Every structure is written in C-alpha cells, then in structure tokens.
C-alpha cells in the first residue's frame, strides 16, 4: 500500500463546544473527589468512554477516504474563480465534512458536504493564488464522526493534469519607481575604502577620483580605465500607495505588479504614507493585499490568535447550520432530568419542576425561533448579563462560605439553586451548536452534582435516563436538518445496517466502560475538605450527655422508657441496658445510608457489665467536645497510633440518617475524627453521644483509623489469657478487669463447656473460632426464641435449654465463655453494613440490620469484632472492590434474584416486537401480495432515481454477483407484474426471495 498516496491521518482539533464537555468532565472529577460518590465515578467513566469513542469515530470516519481527484481547465487565470470537478472516493457518510484543496500552503478550495452528490462529486470554484504550473495538490478531507465533536483530517497529495496559472492578463501594473542600487564605485565605506567588490573595469567617467583608476589597463589602452565596482543589492521596485487601505481593483493590480516584480527577481517595496514594507514572495504580497483590502480574503495568511493555536480549536471547519429541533428538545429534556435529579437530592417535590419545565420550554422556543446557526446573532448583552450574574453569585457564595459546615451548606443551599438558574437562563441563549453543547455540558455538571449529593436508590435510573437523552441530543445535533429526498432514502437504506452497527458500538462502549470501571476502585470517601455534616433542627437531648430517645426525652434506665420498642430505631441496644431476652419487632424501614468504601460494623454502643440477663452501659458520660471538627481521643484498647507492625488505614464514612434515631453516634471502629454539626460526648468505652438526637436528614462524617486486622495478625498474638496474666501493668489490669467479670448466675456447665471446647495450646483466635463453630453447630438463630424463665441465667438457658436465640443471646454466650477463659470481651450494638446500592455505592441500613456482637480485646490490635451470626470481613481482608465490579455484581444479582420475571419481560418485549412486525408484514403482504413485498424490498434497496426494475438492477453493478442477481430479480418482478402468461410459482418466488436477501 502506498502510504503517501493515502495521506496522513491526524487530529485537527475539536469542534465548537467540545471544550465545554471536557471542562464539564473535569468539574465532575472535582465533584467526585469532593463527595466520593461512586455514581459520579460511574458517570465520569461513561463520559470518558463517550468522549474517547467520539474521537475514535472521527478518526475512523476518515479511513474511508480512498482517493481524490480534481479536474479543471488546463489554463486558468490567477485569482480568478474557475469551476473544477472534485471527486472524492469514499467521502465519509457521517457527520460534518470539510474538504480543502491546497496548492502549497495556499488554500484554493474549501467546501463542505452540501456541495457533494451521492457519488462524492462536487463542482467547486477554485481560486489559484499564485501564477505558475500546478501539477500536484494536497486535498484535505476534514471530518467529524457522527457525534461531531472532534475533527480529524486526512491529507492526500494527488498528481493532477498540470494546470497553468497565468498572471492576471488585463491587470495594468501600478506605477513603479525602479531603482538600481548598482553603484559605480564612487561611494565609500566608512573607512574611506571604496565600497563593493571589484567587478571589472570600465572607462573613466567625469568626477571619479584617481583611487579607482586601474593603472595597468589604462597604460595598456592609453585611456583612463577605472575599476568597476558593484554592490550586492539588486533592482528595487517601489510601489507608492496613497493610503493604507486600497480597493479591490487596486489590490488586484498591486498583486499583479508585485508578482511581476517578484517573478523578475526584484525587491518589491510598498510605500504607504505610514510605512514601507518589503515583499519577499507572493505569499507576503497576498497577505499585504488582503490586509490592505481589510477583508479576510486569504484566511490562511491570518494566523489565529495564540490561544486558539494553543488549544487547537479549529473552529473554522464548522459548518454553520440551524439547530436541529429534535436535538434541541432532547437537550431541554436532558436539562429537565438533570434538574429533577438535583431537586430530588435537595428534597424538593415535583411541584417545583413545573415552572422549571416551563422555563426550559421557553428556552427551546427561543432557540428554535432565533437559532440561525450562523454567527451573525451574538447576544453579547445577554451573555455578559448571565456571566456577571453567575460569577457574582458564585463570589457571594464563596465569601459567605466559611468552614466545613459552610461548604456543605453551600453545596446543598445556594449552589444548586444557582446552577439550576444558570441552566434555565442559558437555555434562552442557546442559538447555535456551541451554545447548545455548553448547555448540555452544564446539564452534565448538574447531573454529576446531583449524583454526588444523592444517596438514594434511584440514582442509577436517573443516570440511565439522562444518558439516553443526552446521547440522542448529541447524536442528532449534527444531522442534516432538512434532508433532500436522496438523503432520506440513503438514511433509510442504511438505517438497518446502521442500527445494527450502533447497537454493536453501544455494546462495545458499554463493555469498555465496565472495563474502565473495573480498575477504578470505589472512592474511599469525600475529600477531607468537605466532610459533610448537617444537623436538622433535631430535638436536644433532655439530659446532656445521657442517652436520649428519638424524641429527645431521656431514655435513662427505666426499661419501659428506653427507645420505644417497635419503632424505627427502637432497638434496645441503643439504651442504657440491653435485656438479652428482648429484641422487639424492628421492621424493614430504612434507618440510614452510609457512604463508605467497604462494609464494616456501624457501632453505636458497647456494654461491659452483665448480670446474667441484662447488659448495662458504663455510667460515665465522658467529655463534651464541640463540633464541627471533633478529635476523638483513643480509648482503652484502641491503639492510639499505628506501630511498625500494625498498619492502620483511614476509613471515611458519611452517615445520612433517614429515620429519627436516638442520640447514639454510629461509627466504624476506631473513630479518629468526627465531623458533626453539634457537640458530642466521647465516652471512655469508645462510644459517642450527641447533644441532639439524630433525626431524619442529619448527616455526619467519621474518619476512622482502622487496624488492618488479618487472621494471621490475630493468630500471632497467641493466647490472650496467658499474655494478659503476664502483663506487668497494674493500671491496665485494673481497667480491663470489668471485661473479665462473670455474672454470678453463670452456671458450671457453661464454664465447663468453655473449658472443654478450648484445646490446650490454642491461640485466642482459634478458641474464638472453636466457640463460634460450636455455636453454629449446636444452636439455632430464631427471632422468636422462648424467653428464659425469670431468675434463670440467660446464657445457660440459651446454651443448654432452648438452644434457640437471636444475636444478643448468641453474642452474650460467646462473651461469657470467653471471659470465663480469661479473655477480655464485651458486647457492642449497632448495625451490620446493610446492602450496598451498586450505583450510588452507599450502604442502605434497615432497622432490622440492628445487631449485637462481641468485641474481644487483643493486646496489639485492640478491640476486635467477632460475630457468630453475621459475617463482616476483617478490615485487612476487606476488599474495597471497584465500581465496575459492583455494577456487574448488581446486574448479575438483579437477574439472579428475579430470573423468571426478567425472562418473562424480555420474552414479552420480544413477543410484542415480533407481533407488531408480523402484523405489519401481514397487512403489507395482504395489500401488496408476496411479489409486491419483494418489489418493495427491492425498491427500498436502490436510489429513488432508479424508477424501473432494470434501472434498479443497474445500480448493482459493483460486483458481478450482485448485478446478476439483481438482473434476474428485476426480470422476475417484471414478469410477475406484466407477463400475461405468468403463473405464480412457489419455486420462482423462493428464488426471487433468495435473490433479494442476497442483495442485502
């Protein structure tokens, strides 16, 4: 393959408004970083793939260009338009196309797709700028792909039949002053020596000094002969112009004169009252003439401003076109979806959407009325107004925002309102491609913003809806608005093929997106700059530092007043005492959403004292600390800082409270920094209580320092009972003593069981596993377990009598068994992680996720959670996963959870589609007959200009096979139509149908 003939492919920059998309992407990146929302990451990955694929589509569309040819008359006049026949083999069928023909660096033809016919021919008007013989030309095909965002150009150098470009024949030369600077040797240089080189000898002239006399020649010839000297300068033509600006005619004559001078090798100088300029070549002459006329007649001579060059914004390729109504309406719909999504995040109802939709519709109306597609209308006043208002408002917001809570308040308060207002106002300004793309980009930013704020389960659907609409908007923006009959036909003819191609491309893009996402980890939380915290006018706790129920009343010690059972958040584990025999009906209400990279126990309280039936919280209230930023001190057993052996990592969780909860502050162990809009009591047992109850709408963020616990790490700490006995630290001994206390009611068989199960030489970790295994094998989980009789030991009752119980009893048993073996243990209550929403990446915690588990103290790693009933991985084992992996998991689990429904739905859709098609076919066949249907299919394959069947067949001349089949088909169809002796023969029909199919 001759690569030079095929030309080079290279990017030629972006289309108008593409920059807006790229900027929007980066704004989205900032939002993702700020909020740590997986949904924004998903959006960004899809956007990245979309932008990349539009660039690829642009690159691919120029691949079809095979060859190009230009035919023009053999002799043309310079700067005079001549008609030439340009034909390009394989002109791209999608998107905008600009064809430039260059002679040297000068552009002689520029035309767009509208000039070309189906076969890729165009009659163009060429303007040759320089006289001479042109035998090769560069033809540049610059095209965008279908989405029209990026330009790619392909330059082909073609040999043409030589074209002689003659100078303007009737252009009389301007008046020139010709001067030859060839001196005769009389001029002297500074040093008194004669200037110039000796060039020969000549006779003496009047007035020449004796220094130049060539004596030997003079003596020989007996006349005075002198040196002839010449300087190196040449003849100069000076063209005097009366003023800086000239008219067309003068410019033409000026060009002619200058070309002539340059052709003869003279120096051409143009003298105007203001300046003198030397023209060295024809390009300079043209440039000068163009400037003097004041018209950009030679655009390639006017270099674009530096920023344009730097950004490679080749906007001059753009084909101005009116806005496509479909695209504009789809754009407005995308804006509406974006705003709807944001309103949902802010908690506004659909009522607000009405006026907004009206505003957007106004924008559409104004765009369709005033959107001319040309640059003639520039609503700069509107732009300045909108711009000033926007930046002013942003500046106001920036000045009023202070601190962390201020930022979050701004993100939820004035910022989104401003963004929505900007979008609606900007809708009025959408008049061309650029503004429309900017509009779409703003909508994209709003979507990213909303995806970052929203934590509910519908984010995925919103995103999908927006993506579909925006793809329609972008894809239709470059289509031909008023198609000709042939365009329509061409579109119809390729529509089937294109549909299949589009589906394949969309599938490929989807796969690439998933592939990209599968290496993007789930964001590990919001940036430290904007840890969200928000209080929501919650009732204050009646007694500071004490537990308070959701209504704010003290939930003190009396069992009947601790958080009302049966209510959301009324789990007994969030009161001062935990009766192991009570659980209550918790329901499936959503309690909170937790944005975190990995699952963990969301711990609320810990219990130390156990009397055989009831666990109690230690009465100390701890220290009051005022938010929003609260450093949580390390408590007993929680390691204050990582050591070389123990690795910790930062684990950020943001809690979005969805139901009214008591004032228990949940956190994954071990909380380090708490961002809370209010004040918090940090208690010695590691739990926290706030001064207000956590009611619906509250938000706070916890940064935990998690120990990277692995089984090996636990195993290596050996038997804690032994280690503990060896610890030579009375203070620690004393403080850990409560965690070893056994209730008096503990029965001997409980102790025996604990002792029997433990094997000599076991590490504590192995002991725990053995206990868990025994519990798993010998007891059952049952929410309706029988209540132990009064006065009996709950653990004994559970282990040996009922052997049925719920998490509190199971956890209590494990704790008692461990304590009996000298291992410090306690009970923690809180929530298990809950289900992760795969799109928004948040954990959705339900009331029934309330849980109690055991925490065991390890000397090196501190309190570690163990749970015989729920499986939550160790921090060191937890795999943050990737956004893509989550999506695939969601899809698989979605299909797996309802295979029958999904199968039925797909089947139903297929059935409906099939029924509609077959009914349409039946109607058509009934009306047209079976040969009529064949005829229609054949007609649809060929351009409408082919009216009869033989003419249709003639359009298939590209391959002999198709031509033969088409000819046969044409004959059969004509016989069916006109031959009186025709009998409808099944065999013949079959062969005709096969031929139609073979032509597709």
């Amino acid at each position, binding site marked *: 393959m001759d690569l030079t003939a095929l030309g080079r492919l290279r990017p030629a920059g972006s289309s108008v408004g593409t920059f807006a998309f790229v900027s929007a992407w980066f704004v989205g990146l900032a939002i993702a970083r700020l909020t740590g929302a997986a949904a924004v990451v998903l959006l960004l990955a899809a956007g990245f793939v979309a932008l990349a694929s539009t660039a690829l589509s642009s690159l691919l569309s120029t691949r079809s260009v095979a060859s190009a040819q230009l035919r023009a008359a053999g002799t043309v006049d310079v700067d005079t338009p001549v008609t030439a026949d340009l034909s390009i083999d394989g002109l791209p069928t999608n998107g905008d196309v600009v064809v430039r023909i260059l002679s040297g660096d000068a552009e002689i033809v520029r035309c767009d797709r509208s000039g070309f016919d189906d076969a890729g021919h165009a009659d163009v008007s060429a303007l040759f700028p320089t006289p001479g013989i042109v035998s090769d030309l560069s033809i540049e095909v610059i095209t965008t792909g279908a989405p029209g965002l990026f330009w790619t150009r392909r330059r082909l150098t073609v040999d043409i039949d030589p074209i002689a470009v003659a100078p303007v024949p009737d252009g009389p030369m301007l008046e020139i002053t010709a001067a030859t600077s060839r001196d005769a040797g009389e001029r002297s240089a500074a040093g008194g020596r004669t200037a110039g080189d000796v060039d020969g000898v000549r006779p003496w002239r009047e007035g020449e000094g004796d220094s130049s006399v060539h004596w030997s020649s003079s003596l020989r010839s007996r006349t005075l002969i002198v040196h002839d000297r010449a300087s190196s300068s040449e003849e100069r033509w000076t063209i005097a112009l009366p003023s800086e600006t000239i008219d067309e005619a003068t410019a033409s004559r000026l060009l002619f004169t200058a070309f002539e001078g340059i052709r003869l090798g003279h120096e051409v100088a143009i003298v105007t009252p203001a300046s003198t300029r030397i023209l060295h070549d024809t390009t300079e002459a043209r440039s000068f003439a163009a400037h003097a006329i004041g018209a950009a007649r030679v655009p390639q001579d006017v270099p674009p401003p530096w920023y344009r060059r730097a950004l490679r914004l080749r906007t001059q390729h753009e084909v101005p076109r009116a806005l496509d109504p479909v695209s504009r309406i789809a754009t407005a719909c995308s804006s509406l979806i974006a705003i709807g999504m944001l309103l949902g995040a802010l908690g506004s109802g659909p009522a607000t959407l009405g006026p907004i939709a009206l505003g957007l519709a106004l924008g559409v109306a104004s765009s369709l009325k005033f959107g001319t597609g040309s640059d003639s209308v520039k609503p700069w006043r509107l732009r300045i107004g909108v711009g000033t208002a926007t930046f002013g408002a942003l500046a106001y917001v920036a000045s009023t925002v202070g601190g962390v809570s201020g930022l979050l308040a701004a993100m939820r308060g004035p910022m989104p309102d401003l963004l929505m207002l900007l979008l609606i106002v900007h809708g009025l300004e959408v008049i061309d491609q650029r503004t429309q793309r900017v509009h779409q980009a703003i909508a994209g930013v709003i979507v990213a913003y909303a995806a970052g704020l929203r934590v509910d389960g519908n984010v995925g659907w919103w995103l999908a809806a927006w993506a579909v609409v925006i793809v329609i908007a972008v894809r239709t923006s470059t289509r031909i608005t008023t198609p000709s009959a042939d365009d329509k036909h061409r579109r119809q003819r390729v529509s089937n093929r294109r549909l299949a191609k589009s589906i394949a491309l969309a599938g490929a893009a989807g796969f690439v997106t998933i592939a990209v996402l599968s290496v993007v980890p789930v964001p590990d939380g919001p940036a430290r700059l904007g840890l969200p915290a928000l209080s929501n006018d919650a009732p204050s706790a009646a007694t500071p530092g004490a537990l308070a129920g959701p209504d704010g009343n003290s939930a003190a010690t009396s069992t009947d007043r601790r958080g009302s059972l049966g209510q959301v958040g009324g789990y007994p584990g969030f009161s001062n005492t935990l009766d192991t025999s009570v659980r209550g009906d918790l329901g499936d209400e959503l309690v909170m959403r937790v944005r975190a990279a990995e699952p963990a126990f969301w711990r609320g309280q810990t219990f130390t004292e156990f009397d055989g039936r009831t666990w109690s919280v230690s009465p100390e209230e701890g220290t009051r600390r005022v938010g929003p930023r609260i450093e949580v001190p390390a408590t007993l057993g929680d390691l204050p800082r990582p050591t070389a052996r123990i690795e910790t990592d930062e684990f950020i969780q943001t809690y979005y409270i969805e139901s009214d909860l008591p004032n228990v502050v949940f956190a994954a162990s071990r909380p380090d920094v708490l961002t809370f809009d209010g004040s918090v009591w940090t208690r010695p047992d590691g739990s926290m209580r706030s001064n207000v109850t956590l009611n619906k709408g509250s938000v706070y963020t916890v940064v935990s320092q998690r120990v990277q616990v692995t089984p090996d790490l636990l195993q290596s700490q050996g038997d804690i009972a032994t280690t503990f006995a060896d610890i030579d630290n009375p203070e620690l001994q004393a403080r850990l003593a409560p965690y070893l206390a056994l209730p008096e009611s503990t029965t001997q068989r409980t102790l025996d069981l604990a002792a029997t199960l433990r094997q000599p030489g076991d590490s504590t970790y192995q002991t725990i596993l053995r206990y868990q295994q025994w519990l798993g094998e010998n007891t059952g989980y049952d929410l309706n377990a029988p209540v132990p009789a009064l006065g009996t030991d709950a653990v004994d009752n559970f282990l040996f009598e009922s052997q049925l119980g719920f998490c509190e009893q199971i956890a209590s048993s494990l704790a008692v068994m461990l304590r009996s073996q000298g291992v410090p243990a306690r009970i923690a209550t809180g929530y298990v992680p809950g289900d992760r929403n795969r799109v928004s990446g948040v954990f959705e915690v339900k009331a029934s996720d309330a849980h109690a588990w055991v925490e065991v103290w390890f000397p090196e790693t501190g309190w570690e959670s163990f749970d015989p009933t729920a499986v939550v991985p160790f921090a060191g084992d937890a795999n943050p996963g990737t956004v893509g992996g989550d999506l695939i998991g969601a899809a698989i689990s979605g299909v797996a959870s309802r295979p029958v429904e999904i199968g039925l739905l797909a089947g139903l859709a297929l059935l409906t589609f099939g029924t509609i098609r077959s009914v349409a076919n039946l109607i058509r066949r009934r009306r*047209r*007959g079976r*040969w*009529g249907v*064949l*005829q229609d299919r054949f*007609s649809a394959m060929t351009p409408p*200009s082919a*009216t*009869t*069947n*033989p*003419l249709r067949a003639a359009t298939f001349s590209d391959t002999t096979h198709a031509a033969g089949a088409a000819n046969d088909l044409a004959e059969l*169809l*004509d*016989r*069916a*139509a*006109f*031959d*009186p*002796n025709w009998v409808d023969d099944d065999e013949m029909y079959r062969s005709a149908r096969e031929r139609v199919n073979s032509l597709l």
Partner: protein
Amino acid sequence: MNADTAADMASRLTASINSVIAGKAAVVDVAVATLLARGHLLIEDIPGVGKTLLAQVIARSVGGSFRRIQGTSDLLPGDVTGSMVPCSINPAGTMTSLVFRPGPVFANLVVFDELNRTPPRTQSALLELTEEAQVSIDGVSHPLPDPFMLVATQNPLDIAGTVRLSEGSLDRFAAVVTPGRAPTASEIDVLAGRQGRTMLDAVRPVVSLDELTRVQSFVSCVHVADALAEYVVALLDATRRHPAIRLGASTRGGVLLLALARARAAMQGRTYVISDDIAALAVPALAHRIVLADANSSLDTGRALMTECLAAVPPPTV
C-alpha cells in the same frame, strides 16, 4: 414466429447497423424499434454526425428498395410523391393521357435528407403517406410498398435556411433521435476507416422484407398490461398538466409510444411490455410532440421537460 426469432432478427439488424454507426448503440436501438413498430424516424442533429449514414445503413441492412430525397427549398410535393405526366397511349403519339409516375417515396425505405429545408408545402405532402402509407393524386390512391419507413433528418432550427416542421408533421414521427457526436474512441475508428461511411459498402441485407413484415406483425401482438396503458395515459396527462408546456402530447403519441415499447420488448425477446420499455422510450417518442409555452425553446428543452414528467409519474410494479 416467436419472441426468440424476433429478438434474433432484431439483434442481427442492430449488430449490422452498429458495425457502421460508431458508438451510438442507444440511438440505433430506438431506430430499430421504430422500424419494427412500423413507425417513422426523425434524426435531428448538427451536420456531419452521421444522420444520413444512419438512415442509409438502416436501409441497406433491410433487403428492400431504398430511395433518397434531398430536401431543398425549391422541392415541390410532386417531386416527392410523384405526379401525373402526359404519356402517349398510341404509337403515333397523337393521343396522350395523364399517367401517374411514382415519386421517390415509393420504396420500402425512404431517406428524406434535411427535411426542414423544404417548404411547408412539401413537408405537408408527407402527412398522408406517413400516416396512411399511400399517396393520393387526382383522387386516386396509390399505396406505398409494405413495409414502408420514412427516415428523415433535419438540422437544428438555429441553422440558416431551415423551416420549422409543423406540429402535425412532427407528430407523424414515432421517434426523434439526436445521435450527437460520437465518443472519442469511436471517432478515431471513424477517422481510421474502421467504422463509418467506408464500411457502408460492406453492409449486406441481414433481414429479408418478408421476415421484417412478420416481425412487425409479431410486434403488434406483444401484450401490454392494463397497468402499463394507465402508465402511458398518466405520462400523457403529466405533459398536459405541466406548467411549462402549452400543448401536451397527443393520443397518437401514446399509441406510438406503446408501439415502440412493444418493439423494444420483442427486441429483448419478451412477449410482454414492461414499465422499463415505456420509461426508456418516452423521451424519444414524446419529447417532440409537446408544444412548449416558450415558443423559442429548442427540442432539448422539450426533452428536459419530458424527463421531468417521466420522473413525476411512478412506473407501475407488481
């Protein structure tokens, strides 16, 4: 006689003509179709592109009598049709009687060169013989030989010394063709003597008169589906409704168009006409019959308008 023999004959005829006429296969097809359809042909073009040669080679390829009339401005009707001349009926020559002496049109193939140089009188003399294939002189009808075909040539109207043919005369011609200049390669062949007039002598009749007559009768039996007749009517109607046309195509035009279409079908070995036959022949068969609103327009404008009308009427299909 069946479709195959008709097609065979037509292809022999076409090949024979094409061996002389360089690079004008489409025109030759129309000419042969006209012959088979018992129509008359008018060849219009600038001088020197082989109008007369085409007429002559058609004549020679058909074995029959052949006459040629050169149109001049002083040509009289009698010079064409023949006239009554006094003739002695006794040996002494005392009694004379007017005897009809047949003119040059009494031949199977008559080539009338430069028809539009003759005065309108003479042009009108052709009206009867082209329509009814007979000549009436002094109330006596003299039938022309069968088959009879008139091939006339004319120069474009802007050439000096021409008289526009009347609408009636033009309407008698089944088809008007414009051969135009031959493509370069064919022109080289003509200059080198491989084609063109030098080859005319080599042309031998490839079709006997008898055979031709039988093919002509076969052609008239080729089936035309009703849909196609409707199509022709729609075409005629389109010419009558077109805003740039003062007078649309005549019914005779439709009849002759169908006749030509039948001939084309037979030439392709079919016993039925298809829409393509009509679409392909509509322009040569109808373009000269429409009278344009702009009186100064040429036949080319007529062709363009006819093409427009053709595009406006969708051909029937199954």
